[in-house]
């Protein structure tokens, strides 16, 4: 627009400002976490359907099983791609987080707007030695979550964010 220095024309929706931003990928172990989560959900569904099939014997239950399996396979494939698409970048003044394949999202959160940082790790994540960092601002719509970080990296990011946030913090 009437910008002082318009950035270079971007190549793809997930790669804005390719020469100024160094994107950090998240750990590919998150694929396993997500796959396990998916498998658990699928298993519950499949057991339910299988029991129904064995009991009732209607062919629709078989079709249901096949659909669930196919859907699960497709989802597994997208999980792999989605985890590779997830990334974050720390710039001088803000944090960038990008994710999503079907709907691609990029969040830009200035450090000065940060209200608090959440670091969480569920049992599955812990088993794979991963953690999630989430940045909260005063706006509910802000969506800056970085999953699949090594605990060391997660605490580094948390410390850096809080330090930068304290540095630049301001009231609303």
């Amino acid at each position, binding site marked *: 627009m009437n910008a002082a220095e318009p950035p270079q024309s971007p190549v793809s929706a997930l790669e804005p400002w390719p020469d100024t931003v160094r994107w950090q990928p998240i750990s590919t172990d998150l694929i396993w976490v997500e796959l396990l989560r998916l498998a658990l959900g699928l298993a519950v569904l499949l057991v339910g359907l299988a029991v129904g099939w064995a009991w009732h014997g209607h062919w629709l239950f078989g079709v249901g099983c096949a659909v669930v399996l196919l859907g699960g396979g497709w989802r597994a494939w997208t999980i792999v791609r989605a985890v590779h698409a997830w990334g974050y970048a720390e710039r001088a003044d803000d944090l960038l987080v990008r994710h999503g394949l079907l709907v691609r999202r990029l969040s830009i959160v200035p450090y000065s707007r940060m209200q608090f940082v959440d670091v969480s790790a569920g049992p599955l994540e812990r088993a794979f030695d991963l953690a999630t960092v989430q940045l909260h601002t005063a*706006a509910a719509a802000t969506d800056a979550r970085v999953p699949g970080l090594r605990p060391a990296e997660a605490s580094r990011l948390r410390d850096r964010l809080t330090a930068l946030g304290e540095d630049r913090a301001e009231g609303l």
Partner: protein
Amino acid sequence: MTDGHPGPGAAHPTPPDVPAAPDSPPAMQIRPTWGTPAVPAAPAAPTVPAAPAAPGHPPVPAEPTDQGGAAGGAEPRQRLHPLSPVLHGAKSLFVVIAGLSWSTLSRVGFGWFAVLVAVLALGATVLAVVSWYNTGYHIVGRELRVYEGLLWRRTRAIPLERLQSVEVVRPLLAQLTGLAELRLEVVGGGKTEAPLAYLSVADAARLRQRLLAVAAGTPARETADAVPPPAGDPAVDAAAPVAREPAGRPLHAVSNTDLLVSQLLTPQAFLLPVGVAFVVFQFLSEGSWSFIAVASTLTAMAGVLLQPVRRVLDDWNFRLAREADRLRIHNGLLETRMQTVPLERVQTVVVTWPLLWRMKGWLRLRLEVAGYSGGETDDRNRPDRLLPVGDRETGARIVAEVLPGVRLGALPLTAPPARVRWLRPLSARRLAAGLDERVFAARSGLLTRELALVPYARVQSVRVVQGPAQRRLRLATVHVDTAGGAGATAYHRDLAEAWALAAELTARVHAARRTR
């Protein structure tokens, strides 16, 4: 925030405040960040700091004798107005009658009904008296503390640097008795925090003035450079809060006829004759007028008309004034409200052009303040109206006042590329967005046009979102999030432009922060 205290800028708004509130000179001057330093003459006021820690003891037995004499001590805890339990009781009377309903009346007869109502209302009043006895508030340093509850004691410390707006509400009953309710909006509170019901009008005005003074004194820069021209004004203002109560430069007063006409120009009002005709036709053709049918029809119509009628009642006598760097909004017929919003706290201004108002060239301005949850659907409790109805010039004038340097008619808005019509065949031509000097502006809407203005300094985060259909067309949507309200959204920009917009927005957000 603490670093601002010793500075001359921080100290500036405080001294004028002290003579205004003689009951608390040291507490105000010392300006502790936390409650404890507020007791320079500690033995004089033992209950104040002790109360939050050990709430088991009954609070202040009688405030003037207990601590009022301790001029050197911390501020004594204040009670609400003694009439407030009566008002609460009267309010519960309505609730009781509504709760018992007509069917109870017909079943038990009038005498017993009256007894029942009296007993219940009396019980509610007694409870209100007990809760009044146990409720207290005072300002400790930079906090407003509110104590309440008999069995479950609750002490709320409201940090005043987070104060977003103060509202003095006077429901009909309170107007008759000369009382008022004080409501505070604080960041992070999903609902209105600490409604102090009720105070006498003078007390409410004084307390509001003090709260705002304490809140504004927070970071020196906020009062210092928010409004450079009337630099001496806040001091003068705070010096005599009661005497200069209706002070402030009036900006605009909405004429009540305009308000009535504007609410008649709503779909509800337009559809009413159609509904009436339909009902009458149905009755005439059927020839039967059963009571239930008439009653239900009337109820349905009242429901439809409720919104316009409520808007008329709420926005009656709407007046807008500017008082130093604060905005003062006064409105209401049965329930008058006086809201004070520091200009610093304005997160978003939304300009709306409803379809039927366009023939008059009218618009509506809405103000978003942090503290109200965005999803709150009850628009009655969101005193967000900056201008219920007005023409273009008035709107532009008020926008320029609230967001200095913004000219409503001359915003640099640009339309998205023509291929957007594949996604939004009808409203594509209405979409626009642009970066102004101090605000981000985004327009949308086919029938009801909306223009959202977000100051760069208030932007919390920027998001770029691209859906599958948008990917095909190489489009993306840029969202700007704010602490209150929905922010602004630039729909369907060209991808390269969306990135440029996001980059420029973040750059301006940082710049806005630095210059403040």
